[in-house]
């Protein structure tokens, strides 16, 4: 598990493709924005009543996901690497 040094997001640093990333949101945000490194497109996922956002991993192995909340200066981001699964 990893934590943003300033607090805000907590979750795994790696996740298998096809899995689900569960992010613990500790800064009161109601949604998380997800993009892949080197891409401007973002997708929003809601934070549930348990304070967690669940992001299905639809990206292939090798992708780096940028999961964030808030706007500058309260912008927080954590990076999650997608690893390929052996089939």
């Amino acid at each position, binding site marked *: 598990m990893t934590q943003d040094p300033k607090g805000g997001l907590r979750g795994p640093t790696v996740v298998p493709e096809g899995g689900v990333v569960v992010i613990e949101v500790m800064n009161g945000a109601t949604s998380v924005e997800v*993009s892949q*490194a*080197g*891409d*401007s497109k*973002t997708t929003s996922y809601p934070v549930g009543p348990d304070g967690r956002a669940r992001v299905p991993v639809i990206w292939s192995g090798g992708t*780096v996901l*940028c999961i*964030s909340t808030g*706007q*500058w*200066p309260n*912008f*927080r*981001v*954590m*990076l999650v*690497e997608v690893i390929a699964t052996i089939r």
Partner: protein
Amino acid sequence: MKIDPVWVVQPRADRRAFLLAGGAFVLGGFGGYGLRVLHEPGAAAPPKNEKTGDPELDELRRLAVEAPIEELSAQWSSFVTLRDRKYQQDGVLVEGLRRLVNQCVVSTSTADRRLRAKMLARSVRLGAAMRDGNLAARLPQLEEIAR
């Protein structure tokens, strides 16, 4: 049998000629270097950091060109994520990318070096950074570190 010395250059005029030729060589060297630097892609002075009216972009620009590398490095993931998402075409932010890439390539003790290299390699292929020849030349090194 008498052997006469053979002068390649005449002794007296030669000193001046030698100095002139030497001076011309040095000036030519500096001039050529200057022209090369001026025309080298990406070697131009970084764009001026002017206020944009967007506080987020202004702060990212400050990190890119004014903040010490330690400060930029401490916020590298936010910097690169926001640049990729919203400010790909901003030329000032490319300077920050260049500083992060240099640090990642040169310093083996950089925190999260492999992940950084992976993310930076993707960011370099995006927007204004793609037009920077020096950054593009760093891609093979970043990819090697990212493996």
